[in-house]
């Protein structure tokens, strides 16, 4: 019935499902405009480091490949990166509430490309958080790390925070509210305690310690600190991190499918 006219056949879909760097740049810019996100992800971890990481009582205690101050610096960088990536992922909640997700369905952007943009945006903010803590740490001159570990540990913190970009996405799709980050910040504080980022797990009761070892930040926290403390990397740490990544990613995919299904 309908002959496709020549100029219609010249109309094509974009490459990579619409993924592009202009969109990524604008997403990062949006996040930089959000003062609350900036405060929690860039400033708070730095302040925590300045409070807890410079205490003369223990800051200069030696570890295998660094000192206690560097250990705390890594904890705070991880906390900041996790906050940042969670906040980045959770932006989908706001976008769904504002109808932007629906608007995007009137463009060629594929759902997978959208998720890729969101994850990368979250990771850019996470990188900012790690760099902020490291730069301030370096400037104070107190934390000591063997040369290459500044890069190695920083990278492992950053890559590890990918788990929480998935967490943010999952929750962003699950919770239909503009204030999703207020809820998530609270869960992250719990996870941070469970992972031993704020208080060493050795100070917990045996029962709490056993519970803590199953929480989402436990494996990551152990992994990023391992090179500083020395000693072997335990398989359960890797298992913990991978298991939570699978859980969060599966949850995000499940909710995302539900969200984008055409009814």
């Amino acid at each position, binding site marked *: 019935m309908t002959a496709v006219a*020549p100029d219609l056949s010249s109309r094509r879909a974009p490459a990579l499902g619409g993924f592009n760097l202009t969109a990524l740049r604008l997403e990062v810019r949006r996040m930089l405009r959000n003062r609350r996100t900036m405060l929690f992800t860039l400033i708070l971890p730095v302040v925590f480091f300045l409070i807890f990481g410079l205490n003369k009582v223990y800051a200069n205690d030696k570890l295998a490949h660094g000192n206690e101050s560097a250990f705390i610096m890594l904890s705070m960088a991880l906390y900041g990166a996790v906050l940042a990536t969670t906040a980045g992922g959770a932006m989908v909640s706001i976008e769904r509430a504002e109808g932007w997700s629906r608007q995007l369905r009137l463009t*060629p952007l594929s759902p997978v490309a959208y998720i890729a943009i969101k994850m990368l945006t979250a990771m850019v903010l996470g990188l900012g958080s790690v760099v902020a803590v490291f730069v301030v740490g370096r400037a104070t001159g107190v934390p000591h790390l063997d040369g290459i570990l500044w890069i190695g540990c920083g990278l492992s913190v950053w890559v590890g925070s990918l788990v929480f970009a998935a967490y943010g996405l999952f929750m962003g799709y699950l919770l239909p509210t503009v204030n999703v980050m207020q809820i998530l910040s609270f869960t992250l504080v719990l996870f941070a305690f469970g992972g031993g980022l704020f208080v060493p797990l050795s100070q917990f009761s045996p029962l709490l310690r056993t519970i803590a070892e199953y929480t989402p930040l436990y494996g990551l926290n152990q992994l990023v600190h391992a090179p500083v403390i020395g000693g072997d990397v335990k398989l359960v740490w890797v298992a913990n991190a991978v298991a939570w990544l699978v859980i969060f990613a599966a949850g995000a995919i499940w909710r995302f499918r539900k969200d984008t299904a*055409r009814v």
Partner: protein
Amino acid sequence: MTTTSTAAAARARAASHPPGQLAVDLASVHKNFGSLQAVRGIDLTISSGEIVALLGPNGAGKTTTIDMILGLSRPSSGEVSVFGTQPRQAITRGLISAVMQTGGLLKDLTVAETVEYTASLFATSEPTGEVLRRAGITEIADRRVAKCSGGEQQRLRFAMALLPDPELLVLDEPTTGMDVDGRRNFWASIREDAAKGRTVLFATHYLEEADAYADRIVLLAHGQIVADGTAAQIKALSAGRTVRVTLPGADAHQLRQVPGVDSVELRGDTVLIHASDSDAVARYLLTATPARDMEITARGIEDAFLALTGDGNATGAATEGAAR
């Protein structure tokens, strides 16, 4: 980003679309939400270059129909095709775009950034400065979306919809919440754009809007098309008045013979006469019959909808829309 010259695109459009190329083809489309039948069997074809209004009261199924044309929802049964392809395909190729009623904007971006973002998602796109100009929002390009008025936001949605230089532009009640001035300015932009040969489909519940801007009106009620024709034809359906008189022993058959009478309804001693020429009917009733207590009321568009759906007249009233 590649840029197409608008004039060249318009020529290409005119050259490559023989009249009768179907922009939209709905075949016995139904859509149910649970037990609610929002769309109950719509057959509709729109040719390239037509400007069509989907007119109907709230809840008539306009938005549901538009959502299916845009691929935002799937029909429960029936076929939807846009330029001979699936709606989602047509969207990824930039063939259709839409201006939705509300929402769909990020408050923390500026107007220009929103357009730039959207432009980046298409394979080819019009220059962002050009669409801002055509939508009349060049002056507010640096304003945050959160600070824009409803009318400005609607112009922004229009600018975004222009980006892929779509063959078909769909507008869902685009002037809801705008003041008279905003509404007029908005339609002036649409009209200027449509003059270049773009196919336009818009939903509205204002008869005046449909009358002023569409060359074909599709009247929708209770999820069905009850009339389809030119603005003049549709207006005639709702232009009549109702003359109500007390007239004991009225002869309905005789009253129907009076020039200008469309229909006669007897309710005891009360007679309701629907007429296209109420003056003539009133003159006749007052001079040739003992009718008293006369009331003459305008028949609104809502009444026309009710008349069209209620009296089973739908098929008779429907007329074929002439292709431009």
